[in-house]
């Protein structure tokens, strides 16, 4: 009996490795790495992005691939484990020889793979809104920097909701800390007093929000219009919104504007008590443009799920992928060092009816949309920037970075050029 089991196990193992080696020896294709967690805590957000990439690659292959070759996706699972991200990135680049990688969600995963991409001189497309304060030669940031999301949202609340008192609530990590720091400086510059700003940090996955929501309610009943600016991350959002609903805080009393809550997150919630709470993004599924309608139809056909939602980071991957294709065609090669140079200045249509351009700081131009949650889990766009906004990768509101700029064009070719000292980083 035991012998039988071990025989089965051994042959399964052998068959598995055989299959793997066959797959690896497939004919001459261009390989694209997909580095998104498919298990662990971040799988909730990242799995969809893997599917998006598979869809995009499939679409491109239907059009004949790139440079006459088919594209091939190499999917790995970094399992929400940050060192594993670095390990898998190295494996993708050295072993699988991918020419570009699309991946990461959290800042820490990006920080973990950054040295790998720089060392091996490969390309990473990073699709999520983040805290800024970074510009790497090898990373293209297709998500929003704080000025492409947070500041317009605060402006909207000030002008349209006449908000005077602010709760900045976030998960305790770099993105909320930086965003809140920028917002605090911005609000103070606009004349908001220190006692009218409440800052609160909670750990990842915080699930008991009773006390904090009650505090917010208390803070909000001081006679001035109050709003919550939420940089609460991922898992903690559902219990947070459920508690808001439970304690009867309506958007008409204390609106919450969130930067990390999109259609995917709302799909896990009963949105009726949340109607009117806001989110700021660069894309909403409900955006009424032909490009978006076409994308959603094809995406839902690809996933064979007529209810499958779309969201902002997906659009970022769409833009990033199309930019990469364009840059490869422009450079005539997939060689990362040439593609990196060809990327700057590439403009592709985004899904909200405009053009997004890759700027010399490796960030893209994006429109900013403010949406209110509707009862069906979608957003109703209530405000939109007239054009696209250029990213401030180094925030002018932060002490350490206000003199820094990034420009990856020759001759400057620097991610942290100090305009005061005229030096790139510490180099003289």
């Amino acid at each position, binding site marked *: 009996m035991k012998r039988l089991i071990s025989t089965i196990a051994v042959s399964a193992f052998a068959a598995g490795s055989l299959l793997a080696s066959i797959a690896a020896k497939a004919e001459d294709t261009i390989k694209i790495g997909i580095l998104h967690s498919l*298990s662990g805590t971040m799988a909730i957000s990242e799995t969809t992005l893997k599917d998006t990439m598979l869809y995009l690659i499939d679409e491109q292959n239907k059009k004949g691939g790139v440079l006459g070759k088919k594209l091939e996706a190499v999917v790995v699972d970094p399992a929400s*484990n*940050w060192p594993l991200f670095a390990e898998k990135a190295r494996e993708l680049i050295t072993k699988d020889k991918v020419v570009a990688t699309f991946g990461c969600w959290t800042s820490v995963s990006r920080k973990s793979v950054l040295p790998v991409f720089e060392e091996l001189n490969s390309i990473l497309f990073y699709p999520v809104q983040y805290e800024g304060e970074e510009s790497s030669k090898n990373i293209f940031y297709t998500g929003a920097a704080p000025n492409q999301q947070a500041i317009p949202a605060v402006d909207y609340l000030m002008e349209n909701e006449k908000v005077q008192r602010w709760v900045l609530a976030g998960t305790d990590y770099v993105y909320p800390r930086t965003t809140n720091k920028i917002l605090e400086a911005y609000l103070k510059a606009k004349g908001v007093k220190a006692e009218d700003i409440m800052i609160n940090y909670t750990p990842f996955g915080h699930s008991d929000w009773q006390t904090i929501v009650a505090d917010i309610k208390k803070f909000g009943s001081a006679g001035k219009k109050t709003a919550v600016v939420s940089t609460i991350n991922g898992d903690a959002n559902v219990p947070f919104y459920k508690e808001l609903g439970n304690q009867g805080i309506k958007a008409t009393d204390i609106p919450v504007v969130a930067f990390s809550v999109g259609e995917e997150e709302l799909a896990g919630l009963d949105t009726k008590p949340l109607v009117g709470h806001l989110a700021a993004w660069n894309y909403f599924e409900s955006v009424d443009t032909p490009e978006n309608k076409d994308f959603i139809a094809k995406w839902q056909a690809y996933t064979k799920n007529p209810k499958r939602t779309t969201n902002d980071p997906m659009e970022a991957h769409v833009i990033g992928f199309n930019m990469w294709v364009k840059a490869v065609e422009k450079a005539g090669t997939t060689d990362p060092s040439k593609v990196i140079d060809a990327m700057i200045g590439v403009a592709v249509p985004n899904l909200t009816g405009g053009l997004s351009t890759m700027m010399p700081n490796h960030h893209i131009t994006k429109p900013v949309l403010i949406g209110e949650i509707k009862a069906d889990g979608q957003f109703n766009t209530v405000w939109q920037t007239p054009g696209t906004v250029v990213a401030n990768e180094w925030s002018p509101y932060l002490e350490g970075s206000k003199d820094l700029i990034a420009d990856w064009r020759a001759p400057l070719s620097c991610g942290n050029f100090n305009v005061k000292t005229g030096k790139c980083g*510490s180099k003289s």
Partner: protein
Amino acid sequence: MIKFLFHRFDKTAAYFIAALAVLGVLIPILNLALPEASTFHIPTYLVSLWGKYLAYALLALALDLVWGYCGILSLGHGAFFALGGYAMGMYLMRQIGSRGVYADPILPDFMVFLNWKELPITWYFFDHFVYAIAMVILVPSLLALIFGWFAFRSRVTGVYLSIITQSLTYALLLAFFRNDMGFGGNNGLTDFKDILGFSIQAPTTRAILFSITALMLALGFIVARAMVASRFGQVLASIRDAESRTRFLGYRVENYKLMVFVVSAAMAGIAGALYVPQVGIINPSEFAPANSIEAVIWVAVGGRGTLIGAAIGAVLVNFAKTWLTGTFPDFWLYGLGALFIGVTLFLPKGIIGTLTARFNSGGKGDTA
């Protein structure tokens, strides 16, 4: 001293040391000396990967020492590992100097970012390698000493001990997540540049780090082996098998436990310190209770109370993880889960334990 270390050193142990020595020499040579086109060439990423496996093996060894030989099931050994890793990470951060994005000569980037004006006291002297290495060993040992002194003296045993070790690592996880702690919060420490002046990305540095890891694993094995083979080790085993009886015989059980717990914590700390430069990041998730549980599983897979088994289990499980996450990204958890269940049901003594038993009984005996 030497004689003590190799006291009752049997053939298997000798083979293990020899294998480690060959590995520690051969892999760097195959990586550095051969041209990339050669079939025997080992790419640099594999060197670091195996370096990581060996660091995990050292952690597993440390855990087997307390669990396999003294019956202390620690579900918090990841904490000692991570503390060692943080000590090394802090040294590496200080080595970055003004090459950080904000070009601050003293403060690491994340401190500039949080508007800190000066270095917190916990970071003093970490620019000296020797100090950092001392901390790698001292911090985990000290924590183990304090924790163990309280726990063993109060005779906390069994699952109670396991759960409070888990609480310990969980509390540290939460603490290190806090940005106010000054250890980089969730992002941890990363983007290291060099170690003792050598670029951390250079293949030579990686190869040497790998060799050092292999060496430390061998050393750790010899020390652990010497401990368990001595009279001290026999008392440990009797504590594991019948704690009260050992106490009634007049042994100060808590002192023995404390001793082995501290040594094990120091080994785990060293493992963490070797791990960090090779994977390039240390962050609070290393404190996650799940990581510590996984380390226990490596030991169980390899064979509890065999030392070699623990090391081999760690390498094996992590190799399987690397392979499965790359090849079957959507299904690998089934494979890993099935492996754990299969090992407990069919190989209760772990792989090495079962093999030894079979070998000793001439390959006839049923082991279950």
